[in-house]
């Protein structure tokens, strides 16, 4: 029972920290970015490069862009964790005052929810900006919140894991370059997974099958297209659950080791 209370208190503390930035983040991630991505990936890029099939290709591109949103928002949210660990050492204080498990769960839960809430309106906003240029005839809007929550959990637990492998805040730049950027591009952020698998780059077919993040982008595309060329929703959700659990476990153990080392 005390553990739950600790988690609640820590969650309240996290909210206290970010509440001053909420308006800024709403403007940035719920208004400006959907407008920018709608204008470019949803409208101008498909008209420039795929004039024959602009609406469908534009929808494929813009739906993948939600993945970039997840990574950017979670990256900037979880960065706080590094400064709490290395600079202010609040994390160590929280571990001592409560427990490591409560501290870890509260952070993971908070960043997942925070990322989820900021990214959830992205696709509806894009629909608002693009209108009929965004193909949503087959969209399963009711399933979207559930699938996006799983994507959020998978992405945040992975970002946690990446941040646990770097020892100082100075290595942040490297973390984005080697840990996040390749995952973004090779998991279907722009080109869908079936295209990457067909490419002449060696080993891409196997890589896509083994890459859990490819299933994350596939799940969102499946929501909008309901097409056999994308992986089915139950498979995608299953893979995301397993990969989120594995990444969470790995980051739990890695972070524990780092804090003990301190």
């Amino acid at each position, binding site marked *: 029972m005390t553990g739950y209370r600790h988690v609640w208190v820590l969650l309240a503390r996290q909210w206290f920290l970010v509440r001053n930035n909420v308006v800024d983040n709403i403007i940035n991630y719920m208004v400006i970015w959907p407008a920018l991505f709608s204008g470019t990936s949803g409208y101008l890029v498909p008209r420039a*490069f795929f004039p024959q099939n602009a609406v469908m290709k534009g929808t494929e591109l813009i739906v993948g862009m939600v993945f970039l949103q997840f990574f950017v928002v979670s990256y900037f949210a979880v960065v706080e964790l590094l400064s709490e660990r290395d600079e202010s050492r609040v994390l160590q204080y929280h571990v001592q005052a409560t427990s490591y498990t409560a501290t870890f769960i509260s952070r993971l839960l908070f960043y997942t929810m925070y990322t989820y809430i900021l990214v959830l309106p992205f696709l509806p906003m894009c629909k608002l900006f693009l209108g009929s240029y965004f193909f949503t005839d087959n969209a399963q809007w009711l399933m979207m919140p559930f699938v996006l929550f799983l994507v959020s959990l998978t992405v945040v637990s992975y970002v946690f894991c990446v941040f646990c492998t770097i020892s100082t805040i100075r290595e942040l730049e490297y973390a984005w370059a080697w840990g996040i950027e390749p995952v973004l591009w090779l998991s279907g952020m722009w080109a869908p997974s079936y295209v990457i698998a067909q490419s002449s780059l060696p080993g891409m077919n196997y890589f896509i099958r083994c890459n859990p993040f490819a299933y994350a982008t596939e799940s969102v595309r499946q929501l909008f297209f309901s097409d056999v060329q994308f992986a089915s929703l139950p498979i995608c959700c299953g893979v995301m659950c397993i990969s989120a659990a594995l990444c969470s476990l790995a980051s739990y153990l890695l972070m524990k080791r780092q804090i003990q080392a301190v």
Partner: protein
Amino acid sequence: MESIHESLRVLGLLVQRELYVMRQSWRSIMFSALVFSVLLACASRYFLPLMGMSEECIIPLFLGSFIVSCLSIGYACCLEVAYDLRSPQLIRYYSTLPVPFGCIIGAQVLGIMIRIIVLAIPVLFCGLCIINMWMFLHISWFALLGMIVLAAVFNALFFLILAYQCSIPVLLGNVWPRFLSPLFAFGCALYPWRTVEAHSPFFAQVLLYNPMTYCVEGLRSACLGGSAFLPITRCMQVLFAVNCMLSVVLWFVSVNAVRPVRLKRSSL
């Protein structure tokens, strides 16, 4: 004559200092830009053509998106300058040097320009090697050199203005989503200007108000030639005018940052 010689000597020393700073941080900046460029080249060359994009579009798309690498390099320099300004108050020390203030600002502009050119050109070359479609390139070396210099000056001036004008939290938080992303997204980086003109002439006219459009289209024009992009001379003229304007803005912003009391008095 003596004072000009002395100013040039100090300018040289200040640029040397900028290069020394670059040596400390070039690896991480270069690594990030290189990873982005390699992935972008792979996507442009191997993935998007399978979705139906024609082969002629591969290099224009890569060259346009390559500007993001320049932006991220410029942004990294901007953060370094901003930290220098706030934390050790380096600019106040600089302003006490026995040289004109313009010389100090000139050294900063030159330092960032050199960093952008030195770090971005290998990244560009590496991306073009991965794309491996040299037959499409019709490089006009003189125009390319001019465009690289003008684009680097634009980047340096723009990021220095941001460094002087914005606080660190703003630079870390809102600059990308509110300034750099729109500049990039509506700067023809992901699509050639002529294709926008074909679909939406009004929107194409709006894009012409973004200086990034001229950087990107100028680079494409210098590398690929032909009439599919904005003419190189027009791009260079506009960028030159924009750079002159930004120089004036930078002058006022930097003087304001260093001598706020003097400015306030004179305005009374």
